[in-house]
């Protein structure tokens, strides 16, 4: 017989900190981050892999945390939007640029956008506009408009920001 109520012990390193929990297999990674760890920076949008709001870095690559179960992430490391800032009360250069260039309005898509863009910058320190557009092609924004988001990434990775 299957035991559908069986809890599974998992260990996941999130933003450099190890967490151990017993979870239901059906709990998605994003629900684990939000409900078990209280890291509500990662947003839940569509819950079926369309909107990109739940983007996190999973073992070094950006993925949608609604499209995997927390049990699958056992033994892995995850970086969420909370892990982008260098310390409490400070913003990363990319986050600063989002403020500077007004790259957020309602803020719902912002965590996913930031994580997707930071992943790009980590691979390509000075991306072209085309590369930025491709990096956020899996992230929907319904109010800010993509223009300011692209401007912010280009600004953060240009000389202007580092001198500003």
């Amino acid at each position, binding site marked *: 017989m299957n035991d559908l109520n069986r809890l599974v012990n998992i260990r996941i390193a999130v933003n450099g900190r190890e967490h151990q929990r017993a979870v239901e297999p059906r709990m998605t990674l994003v629900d684990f981050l939000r409900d078990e760890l209280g890291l509500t920076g990662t947003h839940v949008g569509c819950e079926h892999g369309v909107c990109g709001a739940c983007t996190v870095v*999973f073992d070094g*690559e950006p993925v949608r945390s609604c499209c995997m179960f927390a049990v699958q992430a056992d033994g892995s490391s995850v970086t969420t939007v909370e892990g982008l800032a260098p310390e409490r009360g400070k913003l990363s250069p990319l986050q600063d640029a989002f403020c500077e260039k007004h790259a957020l309005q309602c803020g719902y898509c912002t965590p996913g956008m930031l994580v997707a863009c930071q992943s790009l910058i980590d691979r390509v320190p000075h991306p072209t506009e085309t590369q930025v557009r491709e990096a956020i092609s899996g992230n929907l924004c319904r109010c800010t408009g993509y223009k300011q988001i692209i401007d912010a990434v280009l600004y953060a990775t240009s000389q202007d920001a580092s001198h500003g």
Partner: protein
Amino acid sequence: MKAAPFDYIRAESEAHALEVLQQHGADAKLVAGGQSLVPMMAMRLARPSVLVDINRLTSLKGVENAADAIRMGACTRQRDVEHDQGLRSRLPLVAQALAWVGHIQTRNRGTVGGSLVHADPSAELPLAASVLAARLHLRSQNGVRVVDAAEFFQGPMFTATAETECLVAIDWPVWEGARTGSAFDETSIRHGDFAMASAACQLQLDEAGVCQRVALGFGGVDGTPMVFPELASQLVGHRITAQAAREIAHSASSRCEPGDDIHATASFRRHLATVLGERVLLKAADNARNASH
């Protein structure tokens, strides 16, 4: 939008995964990258009571070059294939198709085999597999059988894979010889969305630009990817002119039975297939002429 409860089993080996499938039959489902299955579970269109995770099976991963084919482990991530340099030269159609598959975040998790067994009629990899006549290796406790793409795709989200079988590898035939070119094109509302229609072509020209071999297919315009070996063969022995390409693409699209939905009418989809079919034939011929080897 939450999956129904299920029991989770992380496969320790292929044999372990197959044993669980044999034991649970239709109640069990394999999960690889999960980019199709997990959303389907969230929407409760899929409701397995046992989820068998094959993500960590290294025996199902990797790209191997053989003389006349490239073998991919079914659980190879789309992103890893996309970045494989050998693939771009020997299997350009797959590299071209992958550029249209989802987004970076989904290709980082999504697997080649997962997309094939999911068999969405508008998906890119099933179309590429059909056009190239890929061979799919299905393994159960009884052994391995090899199924041609033409028999593998049986209907929307429906393949020849039995409940007790796991797709373990895919052989993609490589066309040897000079002046081989391919092309992939599609139309969707936004890049990365499901295609309203898609077309893929691979062909080979001789020194004079005369077609020696050609394969053409459409996605999104019928219940499975559609290929047209007999029609396309009418181009063999001729130059690929715009008129010839248009005629073949038109005949091909008239053999398809697209669905009507909120995104596009059947007649618009058929029209798109004609236009895309002509484009990929001409583009593949261009690429064949420009091929350096």
